[in-house]
């Protein structure tokens, strides 16, 4: 029983971390109708930037050798880099691909993935790098009195889940309550209509990609702190995709709920069903789970209903 609760909690927290990445997908899709397959590469790029800047800042300016200061500055610099990336993407690619079909945009983002992978490794190197933002690495054991052996909770995961929740709340507020958020939703609905009422499309897209870049940076810092920053960090995005489709491509709360469902489903399946099938099932199980939900609700749990004009 204790172990079941441990797995459950572990799954919930892993799910929150997946949601962090899924958020990036949802944001960009919501606002520009592009399914950004490059989100994983953006997470990696942001994490690399953060890790390397944190390493280089003390070398460039010895006065700033204090780790906290270095980390904060590195975060700011990395954020700046992501904004630059957003501007570049918008100016060079997105503005010329306006109103193309979904699959063309998808392929463009895939091409962008390759570019970002190569660029990141060229600029920052392809070794394993460390992000040290002071996350505690050892676990904490709670409820020892109730259950024999207690329940093990990873402190790092707990803090990360809290950060993810805060971030999501902020983003939800941003989208619902601010004028920019409304403009973003208008653009997501119909580019041409939004343009015709005076919403500057390119500015909105730059804002959206920057926000997605910011989310990618936070996700990158959290995952990078957990796993170390190196190439396969971009593959975590593949684990976040079921979350995106389960929750609905256009819904931020959907990303959270989807994340929790997938996280729990994945871990429970691997622990309890896995051994019967030889193990290693969690990645396809997550997709099959999302698939089953989609069969019932084809637009995801919270997604917008797909309306066809015939």
């Amino acid at each position, binding site marked *: 029983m204790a*172990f079941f609760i*441990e*797995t459950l909690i*572990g799954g919930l927290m*892993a799910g929150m971390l997946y949601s962090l990445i899924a958020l990036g997908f949802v944001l960009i899709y919501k606002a520009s109708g592009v399914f950004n397959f490059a989100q994983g590469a953006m997470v990696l790029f942001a994490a690399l930037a953060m890790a390397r800047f944190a390493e280089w800042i003390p070398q460039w300016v010895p006065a700033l050798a204090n780790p906290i200061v270095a980390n904060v500055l590195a975060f700011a610099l990395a954020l700046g880099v992501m904004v630059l990336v957003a501007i570049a993407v918008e100016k060079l690619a997105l503005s010329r691909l306006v109103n193309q079909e979904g699959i063309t945009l998808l392929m463009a983002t895939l091409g962008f993935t390759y570019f970002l992978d190569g660029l990141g*490794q060229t600029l920052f190197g*392809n*070794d*394993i*790098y*460390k992000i040290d933002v002071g996350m505690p*690495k*050892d*676990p904490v*054991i709670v409820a020892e009195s109730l259950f024999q052996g207690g329940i*093990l909770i*990873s402190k*790092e*995961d707990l803090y990360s889940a809290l950060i993810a929740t805060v971030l999501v709340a902020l983003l939800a507020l941003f989208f619902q309550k601010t004028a920019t958020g409304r403009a973003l939703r208008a653009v997501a609905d119909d580019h041409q209509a939004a343009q015709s009422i005076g919403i500057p499309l390119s500015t909105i897209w730059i804002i959206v990609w920057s926000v997605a870049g910011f989310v990618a940076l936070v996700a990158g810092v959290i995952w990078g702190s*957990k*796993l*170390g920053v*190196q*190439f*396969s*960090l971009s*593959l*975590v995005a593949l*684990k976040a995709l079921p979350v995106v489709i389960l929750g609905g491509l256009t819904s931020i709360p959907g990303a959270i709920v989807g994340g929790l469902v997938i996280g729990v489903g*994945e*871990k429970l399946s*691997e*622990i309890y069903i*896995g*051994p019967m099938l*030889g*193990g*290693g099932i*969690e*990645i396809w199980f997550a997709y099959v789970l999302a698939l089953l939900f989609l069969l019932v609700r084809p637009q995801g749990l919270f997604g917008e209903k797909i309306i066809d004009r015939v």
Partner: protein
Amino acid sequence: MRRQWLTMILSVMLAAGAQAQQAKEQFFPLLVYRTGPYAPNGTPWANGKQDYIKLINARDGGINGVKLTFEECETGYATDKGVECYERLKGKGASMIDPQATGITFALTEKAPVDKIPLLTLGYGLSAAQDGNVFKWNFPLMGSYWTAADMLIQQIAKKEGGFDKLKGKKIALVYHDSPFGKEPMPMLEERSKMNGFELIKIPVTAPGVEQKSAWLQVRQQRPDYVLLWGWGVMNSTALKEAQATGYPREKMYGVWWAGAEPDVKDVGEGAKGYNALNLNSSGQAPKVIQDILKYVHDKGQGTGPKDEVGSVLYTRGMIIQMLSVEAVRRAQERFGKGKVMTGEQVRWGLENLALDQKKLDALGFAGVMRPLSTSCADHMGSTWARVQTWDGTKWNFSSDWLEADTAILKPMVKAAADKYAADKKITRRTPEDCQS
């Protein structure tokens, strides 16, 4: 970084020179992966090989006057890129090849005999390839996954106080879900039957980026020991997850591909107490490392950063290249000193290596590895390794030299080799063939 650029420029200019196939040059194709999820481990390996080639050229003027040339080809650990690199480089006079990846090894095992190019798979690849009577062109020198698995069980038994103490214990194998990770299972299952311990298999989907469920399972099963069979980023992630789920790192034992600096450096103190096998030593003390620093790095020709010289994987790459060079030298003794050797001749050289302690000392490898001697029937040459432990900042040896138990190993190898021969309709080599 600037230094890296400079050395890269110089090294590739050397490689560009290698394009011109002049008469007296022995060409070594180098399949490497400097990008992708396995790059942190593949890079020092590749650097070690290149530096040794440069050393032989700079210090000795080549092998009996034959200069060594090389060309690197990036495979990214992918089988089809490895095959493409092989096809491209074999036409340049390649006389042997080290695929650096188990998947590529499997693909090339089919092609190499046809093209008459021996495969040097030091410490990896097909375990059954130790039987040279069936696998004429494969050389799993110094160890395979079966010897590694056997030696780890021996060490655990030592820690427990004897093989009989293993009865009833639980040993979990956290493995990379690929042929590489699954290769040790036959040996572990055999040992499990013999010694009475329970073997729990926990796969980690490649490349092993997220392992929470695997380590939750470890926590659920509470095994007495965990064997880590990973490569690349899977290793450091495994150690981080072990820390996050509170599994004592002292109870973890890794194969020799899970025991290098990239695997533990960024975990640092969190990996303290983690043990792994090592086929060779590490550090900058051995004479050959000093020579490399003197003749290659001090002249600005070093392939990688100077502080990487002497690391575990660097040294292993260097050993692989040394064995290649010695095989060519041995082949030259029979087929003509000072001539360029073909694949078939180098194969004979690889099969007749006799590196005793004296020879190793002369080469500057004292204390780096154990003596090695191959034969027609035995393409492995040496079945020794040691266990090392990470103390938070460096590796220290924590055991004596272990030798794989040939009583268990030999019948398994023969059975597997026979099965392969029956499947592929290969007949065992005759004694006459062994002399050729």
